[in-house]
């Protein structure tokens, strides 16, 4: 499996939603996990529903094409999302020397706006990380978004600045 991160940026939820709908993904599949510590964030990993179906089908090795995600397929996606989210966050935590506590993953299916806007406004800023997977012949583009409250944005900036200070 190849994984690359071509983009990291602060954008509004609307920006993320536009990027996903631009790919023709009105409905998405999301794996969410909460992380708390010096800053509190909810990490949301999102795929277009069609790609999530292909991903699970490939992992399960099922030759019956899936039309929707059943309970067991959703759990498989939760596991895959969990591995990804845990490794990204523990990587960040190691670099920035932070301690986080994490929750278990949960899966959500629905229109982009519903998934992103369970709380807050579409104009809220989020930390968006685009990730591209390539597994065998399958190209999957996912978005990882960290929802941060105002205090956490400030705390993230301070921590990153502190980290950059240690480099110089």
């Amino acid at each position: 499996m190849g994984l690359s991160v071509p983009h990291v940026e602060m954008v509004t939820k609307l920006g993320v939603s536009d990027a996903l709908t631009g790919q023709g993904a009105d409905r998405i599949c999301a794996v969410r996990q909460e992380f708390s510590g010096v800053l509190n964030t909810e990490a949301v990993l999102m795929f277009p529903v069609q790609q999530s179906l292909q991903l699970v089908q490939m992992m399960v090795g099922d030759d019956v094409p899936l039309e929707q995600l059943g309970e067991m397929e959703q759990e498989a996606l939760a596991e895959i999302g969990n591995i990804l989210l845990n490794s990204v966050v523990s990587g960040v935590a190691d670099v920035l020397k932070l301690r986080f506590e994490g929750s278990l993953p949960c899966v959500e299916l629905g229109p982009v706006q519903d998934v992103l806007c369970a709380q807050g406004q579409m104009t809220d800023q989020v930390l968006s990380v685009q990730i591209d997977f390539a597994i065998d012949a399958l190209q999957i583009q996912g978005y990882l978004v960290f929802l941060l409250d105002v205090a956490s944005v400030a705390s993230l900036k301070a921590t990153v600045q502190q980290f950059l200070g240690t480099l110089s």
Partner: protein
Amino acid sequence: MSGPVMSAPPRDCPPWSAWVLERLQMGLLVLDAQGDVVFANQWLLTHTKLAADAVLSKNLMEVFPQLKDSAFAHALAQSIKSGFPTLLSQTLHPSPFPLYLPSSQRGQDKLLRQSIRIMPAGGLVADTMDQRYTFIQINDVTQSVMRERLLKAQAVRLKNMAQVDVLTGLGNRRRRDDVLPTALRASGKTAQPLSVIMFDIDYFKQFNDIYGHLAGDECLRQVAQVLRDVFRRPQDMVARFGGEEFVAVLPETDGQAAQALAEQVLQQMRALGIAHSGSCTAAVVTISAGVAVYDPAGGQTPDRLVLAADQALYAAKSAGRNQVCGPQ
């Protein structure tokens, strides 16, 4: 946030907490920092058919040697290292622990399907304890797996039923619509040719008028049998397309082979010798056929390919029926 079970020091435990943990209808295991089991609830002992002293104060990998080097062991190590909870799904890891129904004879019955959560005491919770504990929660999801499997099997059965032509037992138009695009994609991938043949019974309307609809139905069934006899490879698909039209989708078959097979169908039809006094072609029921070939490099749509076969069939009709016409 997470791991509330271990967050309270023992002295604050309400009197019912041990009783509740014992009787929870899921497996619970608590490991200490060395990976030794410090707690296993009754559900887990009953379903592993192990006694408490075979489990407690022993290393988890010693109690369950089948876990060594497994995906579970890897996930456990990762989870303890990162301090983040981990989920192992039944779909990707059906039965890591040797859990059986209590009523079954060990080894004779199937393992229970398991959904597993690993919760390391990370972050602030760890500070409230004397060491870093990890708890493992195992849910039996066998029933859900069975239910989903049953529903899927039913869906497949209903789908197949919806794609059968009741009169002849061949596929119907829906089957063709389902199979053809997939077959074309496969042909494109493997660069193997694919042929489509359209068949039409000559003067079938007149046959019905003269001999009646029951005889017409019987004639359709006989044609279906001939088609089944000629196209017998598992990958061949034959469907009744309209009233008296049939279509054969033949993967890995070039135009020449398809034409020969179509000739065989025509020949077998004539050999059946079903009398047809209303035919201007022969004294018996005959068939016309049109062949079209899919060029893997060309990338035609399914509709265009069927149209090409239809045009070839039309050419066979115009040229006097009871014959095969190839690609135009």
